[in-house]
């Protein structure tokens, strides 16, 4: 998939794609790679507009919702493309971008209702173990769990410090590696 197509997809997300670009995207809508990219770009776009932050992640319900919304959005993105395919060329003119956007938001609303009802059922009894699983699935920090032994924590800190040293060269990367180290050292000692 070429860069031009990726740019067209990005433009479509911002409601700025012209008819030719939409047509090009629709022609390739069966392509799995395109659908995966559509899903990813949608999620990034949502973060931009929602201002969702990291501290929302640790509540088990929030994690569940966001992953389900993400899934729903990528599914919805696919649905939107499939439906558009069935329309005639004449209707591609003005309604396409707004229609896809509308369908995306409708999908989000549906997903929210769906996920809230799912989340409220099975999780009430197994909050503890599920939280661990959810954390692990989300790839989130296990360091904060008390189960990491002090000597392992120490070793991890050494690796992190070394890695930060490897990443900072002449200030090219800004202070992010150092900020990470500072944040780490705060809690580990």
């Amino acid at each position: 998939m070429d860069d031009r197509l990726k740019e067209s997809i990005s433009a479509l997300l911002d409601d700025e794609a012209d008819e030719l670009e939409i047509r090009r995207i629709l022609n390739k809508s069966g392509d799995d790679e395109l659908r995966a990219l559509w899903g990813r770009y949608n999620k990034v776009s949502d973060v931009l507009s929602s201002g969702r932050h990291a501290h929302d992640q640790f509540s088990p319900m929030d994690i569940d919702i966001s992953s389900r919304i993400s899934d729903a959005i990528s599914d919805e993105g696919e649905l939107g493309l499939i439906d558009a395919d069935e329309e005639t060329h004449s209707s591609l003119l003005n309604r396409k971008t707004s229609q896809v956007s509308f369908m995306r938001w409708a999908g989000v609303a549906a997903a929210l209702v769906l996920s809230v009802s799912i989340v409220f059922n099975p999780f009430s009894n197994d909050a503890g173990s599920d939280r661990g699983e959810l954390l692990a699935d989300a790839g989130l920090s296990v360091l904060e769990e008390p189960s990491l032994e002090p000597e392992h924590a120490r070793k991890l800190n050494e690796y992190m410090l070394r890695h930060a040293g490897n990443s900072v060269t002449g200030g090219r990367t800004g202070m992010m590696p150092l900020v990470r180290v500072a944040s780490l050292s705060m809690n580990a000692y």
Partner: protein
Amino acid sequence: MKVPFRQKKYQAKLSACSLICCSLILLVGAFVVPQQGFASTEADEWLEHMVSAMKTQSYRGVFVYSRGDIFSSMNVIHRYKDGVERERLVQLDGEMGEILRTDDKVVCILPGNREISLEQSIPAGPFAGAFSQTLMPDKNHYTVEIKGEGRVAGLSAVKIAVMAKDTYRYSYLLWLEKTSGLLLKSLLLDEHGQTLELFHYTSIELVDNITDAELQPNKKAGVVFSHEQVPAVKASKEWPEAMVWKIGWLPQGFMRLNAGDDGVVLKPSHIQVFSDGLASFSVFIESPGKGNMPEGKLAVGATVAYVHRLKWKRHDYMVTVVGEVPFTTAMKVAETVVPEISPPK
């Protein structure tokens, strides 16, 4: 005013304004690739402003940083004067801690009266030149675009998205101050759009009046500090049996910045450092010993550590990959590291 970020190729009428803008950009010698709108060159220019401002803009401010659910606030003072860059990061939460930097030399002042000097790792090897000037995301692996405008810490900002083209690296959203290009806010996102790391100024002043006193650490007088040195990655002959390690798999676009052996901090161990221009990871190879971490993955915000025990001939080795990459990348790299024995010289 919305920043126009795409040139519509089949648009019949170009306004006079756009024509002038385009010719100005051509005159300035911007790199124009047919089929890409001027948006991507403009986004590139913003990134260049960002890198330049990181080094040459003087400022003082307070920012919030989060990794996972741990938030911390820090005070930063940064000065560029007479060709020398100095920076001081002060932790504002929990115990007192500071990081001081003068060009490439870093000193961390940690709780418990510990002072650690980090010797900088200077990239060496055939690809080092590519990274010597600026750290720019490679177009083959990231889509860089201007996404609009915003306001951060009371200042107008341009929003830039640096989106990974595959799942082996993370994506970034950046807010750059409109006049200087200084990074005011950034989000590091995984492939599900989840924020792994947040960096956000709550207040900042772009000033020229930073004094030397402001850059001095706040060390209690009369307290004895222990000194440690974390050396840079340098090639050496410490590793027994003159082993050469081969990295069997690398995600596209990642190149080795440095390789060497460390006989001091993690002993003995071999370290290789890789970067794609934006993200980086380090590979540590050691003999197993006490204190080695259990196999598997650990994540601390955006940084992941993946530990793999390699059994090779009659020896065991611990391979640990640490970096700001998805854990699948760390895992694939860790599991395909193999030794290549070469006869001792």
